[in-house]
């Protein structure tokens, strides 16, 4: 672009002339020179640039966020560039009609210092982030500006407030007063959601949640392809962005569309801190950072926002290899930020609560009320007004639920909805003793389940003593994430088991110290969705990874005598197989949901031994798990594979399990495994007893 170069040359000449004249137009305020280094190390400044404590690189990847070319690695350069830019545009405005400073458009411009870009084409190009209306640095970086003015008195004295229409409009609309950390839990039958999610909500002074604004970080994904999701998400190939939108929109998305329970944790940030939070979120508009599923994900990025609001916090520097949403909530709790908690049940959860209070006749009528094709003239209402109220409240939820399954048209939905509302409006209010209609229950309400801070920590380490006949040994277990149905249940989604990279090693023999990998499950997902009168989901499970052919077995001092399975070479009685298993079935809840029963059919594709050929198998699993109190659980399970010749030479499995949870992060386990049916003595499978301890950290 020759025109640009020549303009720069002209400007350089002017610059030299001005300096020669002794004009101060381009100089920075005197008080900055001495304090720049000190200010740049201030936690507040570093927090605004997303520099975790003690780290040399900002978490933000978009270079357009930084005014200095090396801003991503140099907070001081960024500070100086910001002050320079603020000062510059102030001078320009004072001289009237100069174009605003356009940050980091062209590396060449930057090298010449922050010269005002008088090229009209560049400023009209709108290639800057957030450049639609508010081009001034003051307007694009309100948090930085406010803080710098506070710390540099000369700058505060010099700067005139410039009009920032778009920022002002947002500020007026959002009215930041208080902030809430929101946790939409996962929901069954959607492993994509199973770790949950976190977002922030900023509320106006009267603290109406429905008038709040959600601040959300998410990967920008265009694909529909699951494999692309997985790959791009893990390796940081998606750009993540923050967005602000009305909280009620998010509520609809989570509670109705996705049927997710939500917890809202009110934070003790002050109105001034919440203002800074919103100012900083504004600065992040359009500034991407790469989304990494394991560590730099939605929950991690939110922590940077909290640090910007309250710079004394250090939430980001101690990041491990992975960041799980519920862990960040516990982290925020430990930092002393949580005030109180509310619970919003999803629509499905509300329905489950309501249907328990309805009689079978009511439920029949309910199904018809939720079907717009049924003629209302045929409805026979309960004679009791209280019962009719409950029925109508349930029917409103049920109709919406059916509509979300796209079972009928929008107009049919509206007509039936209006009909039900009209009927309901004639019946007055529910008595206080009946199901509360306020959707946000306080955590102290007995109907509210425990929130994630009550849940065990996500990394599980275990040591278990095992004994089988005359053999004994130890199992060492490591599971980085997350939860299964035999762990302490409080604070976790009921029925959801998800395990990542779960490894079990067997150590055996006092004298011969043999050690062997028993199992390395890469992913195991168990989705036990309970049936109810109205909701009849499938339950299913998926797992893949390595496991021994005979799971309940020991190392083989005795095995040498056994006849190897006819399908396997003699030397491999209990090979490590790679297998993929999928199952589908039904689960039921009894005794007020304290008892779970489940049954499913399963299919397996596995290697015979190591990578020596594949085979397929069909099988089944049947079991029950009882949770009589939060402190302990017990269960029985039977399973077997049926169709392959390999399976038919092996017994089936049965097991009894007992768990005791003396505290949130300690669990004791007892298990008795019993081969049965079909050749129970064949191969290495024997009755095996285990007793162990799990620690969660």
């Amino acid at each position, binding site marked *: 672009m020759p025109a640009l170069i020549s303009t720069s040359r002209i400007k350089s000449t002017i610059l030299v002339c001005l300096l020669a004249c002794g004009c101060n137009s381009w100089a920075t305020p005197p008080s900055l020179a001495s304090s720049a280094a000190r200010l740049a190390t201030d936690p507040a400044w570093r927090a605004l640039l997303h520099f975790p404590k003690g780290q040399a690189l900002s978490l933000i990847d978009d270079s357009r966020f930084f005014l200095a070319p090396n801003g991503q690695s140099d907070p001081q350069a960024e500070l100086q560039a910001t002050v320079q830019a603020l000062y510059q545009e102030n001078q320009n405005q004072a001289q009237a009609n100069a174009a605003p400073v356009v940050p980091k458009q062209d590396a060449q411009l930057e090298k010449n210092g922050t010269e005002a870009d008088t090229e009209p084409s560049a400023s009209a190009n709108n290639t800057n982030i957030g450049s639609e209306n508010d081009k001034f640095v003051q307007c694009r970086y309100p948090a930085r500006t406010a803080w710098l003015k506070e710390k540099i008195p000369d700058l505060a004295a010099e700067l005139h407030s410039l009009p920032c229409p778009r920022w002002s409009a947002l500020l007026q609309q959002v009215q930041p007063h208080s902030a809430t950390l929101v946790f939409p839990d996962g929901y069954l039958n959607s492993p994509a959601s199973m770790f949950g999610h976190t977002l922030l909500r900023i509320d106006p002074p009267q603290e109406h949640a429905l008038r709040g604004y959600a601040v959300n970080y998410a990967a920008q994904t265009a694909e529909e392809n699951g494999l692309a999701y997985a790959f791009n998400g893990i390796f940081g190939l998606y750009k993540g962005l923050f967005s602000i939108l009305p909280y009620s929109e998010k509520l609809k998305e989570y509670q109705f569309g996705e049927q997710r329970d939500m917890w809202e944790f009110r934070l003790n940030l002050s109105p001034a801190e919440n203002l800074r939070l919103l100012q900083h979120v504004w600065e992040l508009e359009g500034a991407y950072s790469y989304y990494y599923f394991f560590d730099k994900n939605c929950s991690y990025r939110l922590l940077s926002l909290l640090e910007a609001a309250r710079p004394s916090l250090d939430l980001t520097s101690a990041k491990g290899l992975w960041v799980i949403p519920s862990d960040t909530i516990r982290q925020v709790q430990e930092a002393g930020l949580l005030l109180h908690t509310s619970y919003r049940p999803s629509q499905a959860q509300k329905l489950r609560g309501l249907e328990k209070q309805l009689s079978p006749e009511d439920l029949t009528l309910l199904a018809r009320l939720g079907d717009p094709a049924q003629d209302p003239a045929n409805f026979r209402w309960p004679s009791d007004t209280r019962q009719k109220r409950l029925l109508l409240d349930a029917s409103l939820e049920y109709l919406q639920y059916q509509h979300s399954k796209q079972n009928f048209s929008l107009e049919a939905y509206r007509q039936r909805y209006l009909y039900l509302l009209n009927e309901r*409006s004639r019946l007055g209010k529910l008595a206080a003793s009946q199901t509360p209609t306020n959707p946000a229950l306080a955590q102290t309400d007995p109907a509210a389940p425990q929130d994630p801070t009550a849940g065990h920590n996500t990394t599980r380490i275990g040591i278990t003593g095992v004994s089988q006949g005359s053999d004994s040994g130890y199992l060492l277990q490591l599971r980085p994430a997350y939860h299964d149905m035999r762990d302490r249940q409080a604070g976790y989604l009921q029925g959801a088991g998800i395990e990542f990279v779960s490894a079990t090693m067997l150590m055996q023999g006092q004298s011969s110290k043999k050690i062997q990998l028993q199992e390395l499950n890469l992913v195991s997902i168990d989705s036990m969705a309970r049936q109810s009168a109205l909701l009849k989901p499938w339950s299913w499970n998926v797992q893949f990874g390595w496991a021994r052919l005979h799971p309940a077995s020991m190392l083989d001092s005795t095995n040498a005598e056994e006849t190897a399975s006819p399908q396997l070479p003699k030397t491999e009685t209990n090979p490590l197989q790679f297998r993929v298993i999928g199952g589908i079935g039904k689960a039921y809840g009894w005794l007020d949901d304290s008892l779970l029963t489940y049954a499913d059919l399963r299919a397996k594709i596995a290697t015979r031994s190591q990578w020596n050929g594949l085979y397929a198998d069909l099988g089944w699993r049947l079991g029950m798990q009882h949770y009589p109190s939060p402190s302990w659980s017990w269960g029985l399970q039977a399973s077997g594979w049926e169709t392959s010749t390999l399976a038919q030479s092996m017994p089936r499995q049965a097991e009894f399990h007992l768990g005791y949870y003396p505290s949130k992060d300690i669990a004791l386990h007892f298990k008795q495994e019993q081969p049965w049916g079909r050749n129970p003595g064949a191969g290495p499978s024997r009755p095996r007893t285990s007793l162990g301890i799990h620690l969660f950290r």
Partner: protein
Amino acid sequence: MKKILALTFTLATLATSAIAGPNTGCGLGNEVIKNQNTVLMQVLAVTTNGTFGNQTFGISFGTLGCAKPASWVGAETQQFVALNMEGLAADIAKGQGEAVDTLADLMKQDRATFASKLQSNFDKIYTSTSVDASAVLSNIKAVL
């Protein structure tokens, strides 16, 4: 072998989930966008924590495509009603709830009286299935 694979993938092609689309109008309820995600894709999609919602920044009032608000009600009240049509209608029909309480505060009315009066005049407020936020607010004003 192929049969086994086919069976496995058939078993995997289970869950379809539907999500409510963005509130593109101001009436009761939204069009539902059916989201065909097989379980297999869901398992793989776990890595991005599944974001399907539209991403927006700095929503300004009046972008919802609703009819122009009456002059007597603030833009925020208008937006509140437009974004919470179903929830508000349900709360008014029940005579209590978070949405109707919020509206009472916005309109500087006593919560209990407001909810009660609106409930007894429900059919005068929600006069048809095509009623939108502006109409609802006008009708509420007439009833107060």
